[in-house]
C-alpha cells in the first residue's frame, strides 16, 4: 500500500515512449499527446489497485532555447503520500510528467 516511486516512474516512461517516442514536435498533435500521456498513466496507476487518489500532470514543450522551470509544493501527510516526476526528451521535445499519490 506504499507509494513506490520506481514503479510509478516505469509507468510514466512507458506512457511517454509509446505516445511521443521519436516523433518531432508538431503543434497539431501536442494536444493529443498530453491527453494521451495523462490518460495512459492514470489508467495504469488505477490498475495497480492501491488505495490512492492520483493527480497526473504533463508538460510538453518544444525545444527552441526557451527557459522552462517547474516547481511543486504539497501540504499533505508525508507518511502516506508521495510524488514522482520524470523528465523525458527527444530531439525536438521536452516532456515533464508528475504523479502525485495521496493515500486514502
Amino acid at each position, binding site marked *: 500500500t506504499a507509494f513506490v516511486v520506481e514503479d510509478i516512474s516505469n509507468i510514466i516512461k512507458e506512457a511517454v515512449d509509446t505516445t511521443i517516442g521519436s516523433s518531432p514536435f508538431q503543434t497539431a498533435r501536442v494536444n493529443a499527446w498530453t491527453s494521451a500521456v495523462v490518460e495512459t498513466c*492514470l489508467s495504469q496507476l488505477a490498475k495497480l489497485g492501491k488505495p490512492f487518489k492520483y493527480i497526473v500532470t504533463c508538460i510538453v514543450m*518544444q525545444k527552441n532555447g526557451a527557459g*522552462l522551470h517547474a516547481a511543486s509544493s504539497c501540504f499533505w501527510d508525508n507518511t502516506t503520500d508521495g510524488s514522482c516526476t520524470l523528465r523525458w526528451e527527444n530531439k525536438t521535445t521536452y516532456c515533464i510528467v508528475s504523479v502525485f499519490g495521496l493515500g486514502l
Partner: protein
Amino acid sequence: MYASIFSLSRTWFHPRSVCVEFACSPRVLSLVFFFLVNVFLLHCGPRVLCPHRVCVLQSVDAAIGGSTYQHSRVNQWSSSVVENCLGQLTKLGKPFKYIVTCIIMQKNGAGLQTATSCFWDNTTDGSCTVRWENKSMYCIVSVFGLAI
C-alpha cells in the same frame, strides 16, 4: 416563478429595461441573484472557489510582478510562488490536502502544452489553474485540493 426568470433573462441584454424591472420587483431580483451565484459557482468548481484563485494571483504578483525573465532567478521565483500559495491556502483553514504546481516559461515563441488528469472523488475534490503572463514570461499555477 419560471415566467419571471425567463422574462428577466430576455431583458439581460438590455440594461435599461433591467433597471426598470429591478425597481419594480425585488423578489425577481433575489431570484436572479441566486441564479447568477449558482452559475458562477458551477464555473469555478464544486469545492475550489474564488479564495484559491485570489491566493494564487496574489502570490504570483508578489513573487514575479513586473520582473523580466532571468535564468538565474527563475528557480527562486517558482519556489517562492508555490510556497506563498501554499501558505495562503493553509491559512484558509479548510480541511484539504493541497498540491501546488508552478511552471515559468520564457517567452520566445516555443510551444507549450500542459494537461492534468485526476483520479479522485469528484464530489469533494477540485482544482484551479491560473495562467499569468507579462512581457517576458508565462506562469501557469495549478492548485489541487483533496478533501481529508
